[in-house]
């Protein structure tokens, strides 16, 4: 009986409501009261930001690829030398 009551009460917790989440509306994309980086978008300077971050990303990714290739080459060398020695 007690177990049944406890489980029953636990199920009641489904209806609990803490904060109500405020949905993001279409108007949130269009309103003009909130300041955003519109000036930067207007005068095209936003592309400087995009460009800077992209360049950094591309260079770092290029470095990752270089290291990856070097490690693959070393692994292959090790495999062939293993084959030669055990042959």
């Amino acid at each position: 009986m007690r177990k049944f009551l406890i489980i029953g009460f636990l199920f009641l917790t489904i209806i609990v409501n803490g904060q109500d989440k405020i949905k993001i509306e279409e108007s949130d994309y269009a309103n003009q009261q909130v300041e955003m980086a519109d000036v930067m978008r207007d005068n095209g300077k936003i592309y400087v930001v995009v460009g800077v971050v992209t360049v950094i990303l591309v260079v770092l990714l290029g470095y990752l690829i270089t290291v990856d290739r070097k490690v693959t080459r070393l692994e292959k060398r090790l495999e062939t030398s293993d084959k030669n020695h055990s042959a």
Partner: protein
Amino acid sequence: MVMRKSWWKIVTIILLLYVVIGGLLMDVPRLNILNETIRALYFHVPMWFGMIIMLGIAVYHSIKYLKNPSAERDIKALEFVNVGVLFGVLGIVTGMFWAQFTWGEWWSGDPKQNASAIGLLIYFAYFVLRGSLEDDEQKARISAVYNIFAFCALIPLLFILPRLTDSLHPGNGGNPGFNAYDLDSKLRLVFYPAVIAWTFLGIWIATLRIRIKTLQNVLDQ
């Protein structure tokens, strides 16, 4: 082996470029307090997703190590912890930066901030533990056990404690100004690929480190 395959690395590169360019240029809701910083969502939050996934993989390797000890398993566990902690540190630092300009201070004593700092400290202790043990087998075994404990401590710290009390973080307790930032479909368009991209990047870095360590071990023999 998966570590050498290229397809997921190419996916990573493409997705990362999409996240950076799209994340900065695509439309976002114009919300008070957040303004344009809402775009940090695509970078700060995936750091944490990435961290949990990396540390989860590390725990998997630690458990496997305890069942069947081998040096390779230990290297895998270690390197995934390395990248996981790196992501965690990046997450905290970017979070502090974001907080300074939206919540008004670098550190607000928010439960999730505190819990993530504690969680990271627990993982820093993992490295101290490894450094303090000389014998390789002992080092691997004890740190595997500690790794499991650390992960089990991290989960309630990050996901349960912050929800039990008031928190500034969205999704936990709450502050009306931030509840408005419920993930909507336009944000999801960049957010989901971001999580995938940053996670794959973490796996790429971890697997590279594993391969290099393995090579070093073979050459040292």
